[in-house]
């Protein structure tokens, strides 16, 4: 199937701003799925609220556009009810880790077989540019006129500690890597987290004088490096890209089958 066949073309051009990285992530996602040749009927996308979450309107899957921060909770219900379905759960950084942080760590803990895709633009885009738990320190935002003092989460570290069995990071500059990683995440059995560093030129870019969309993408080139690279040792400030965790552990739905077996075996 061609990439476009996974899209609801009738809704394009999408509502995102010119240069918004969310469109690149959408592109990366459908290309990854196209490579995997998945059928649209087995795909369910569950998203929350945010510019990023509007992605569910553009893919021709079963799409569930929910409430802010709860996408993974809804997804947990869909997945456990129908384990054979493939779930993709795109979230903004605020959606996933501000209001949604608890569902994020608990979905990871259960090692539920689905793919959490964090579209991290380090800002609340939909509401007009307030800082997020991923902004990190010294960032300007509409609610941080004197720059942020909050430290940011490291999504990969947090996902790992919470129990995710696949954890990776890429950016909108490294599109091929992004596609490759998303494809691996989708095929992984268990809870997979893919963080994509993406640009919000309208708010993050403007507020922090990083320039236009292209400049922001270039920023990702200059400030990231492959995991464990020499560059990282020389310049610890660099953000690592690649796959941090990839391991097999008991998956929730499979374990649940055992519960049913025990119950039917009458052990109680």
């Amino acid at each position, binding site marked *: 199937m061609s*990439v*476009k066949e996974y*899209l609801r073309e009738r809704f*394009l*051009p*999408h509502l*995102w*701003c*010119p*240069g*918004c*990285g*969310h*469109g*690149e992530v*959408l*592109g*990366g996602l459908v*290309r990854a799925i196209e490579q995997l040749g998945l059928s649209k009927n087995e795909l369910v996308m569950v998203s929350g609220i945010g510019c990023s979450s509007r992605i569910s309107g553009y893919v021709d899957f079963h799409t569930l556009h929910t409430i802010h921060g709860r996408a993974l909770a809804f997804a947990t219900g869909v997945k456990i009810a129908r384990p054979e379905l493939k779930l993709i759960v795109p979230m903004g950084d605020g959606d996933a880790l501000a209001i949604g942080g608890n569902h994020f760590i608990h979905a990871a803990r259960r090692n539920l077989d689905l793919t959490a895709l964090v579209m991290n633009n380090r800002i609340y885009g939909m509401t007009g540019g307030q800082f997020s738990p991923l902004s990190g320190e010294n960032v300007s935002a509409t609610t941080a006129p004197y720059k942020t003092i909050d430290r940011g989460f490291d999504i990969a570290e947090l996902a790992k500690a919470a129990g995710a069995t696949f954890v990776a990071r890429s950016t*909108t*500059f490294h*599109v*091929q890597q992004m*596609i490759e990683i998303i494809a691996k995440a989708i095929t992984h059995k268990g809870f997979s987290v893919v963080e994509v560093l993406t640009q919000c*030129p309208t708010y993050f870019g403007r507020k922090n004088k990083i320039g*236009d*969309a*292209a*400049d922001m*993408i*270039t920023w990702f080139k200059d400030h990231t490096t492959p995991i464990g690279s020499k560059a990282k040792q020389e310049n610890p400030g660099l953000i690592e890209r690649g796959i941090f965790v990839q391991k097999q552990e008991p998956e929730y739905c499979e374990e649940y089958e055992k519960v049913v077996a025990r119950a039917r075996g009458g052990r109680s």
Partner: protein
Amino acid sequence: MAKPKLKQHHINRDWCKGCGICVELCPKKVLELDDQDKVTVVRPQDCICCRLCELRCPDFAIEVETQE
């Protein structure tokens, strides 16, 4: 495998929002924005068919078609 040759760029002007990503990040500076802020191909001969513009366009507005 033989490196691909450009057949043409398919550009969807309705979808292009003129963000300039493809233009600025094209390694060969093949693309430019016209006075309507839509992308146009100005140096097709320099195109190395890396498809980066296609992959990075947030709006599915540019496609690179190659020969064999």
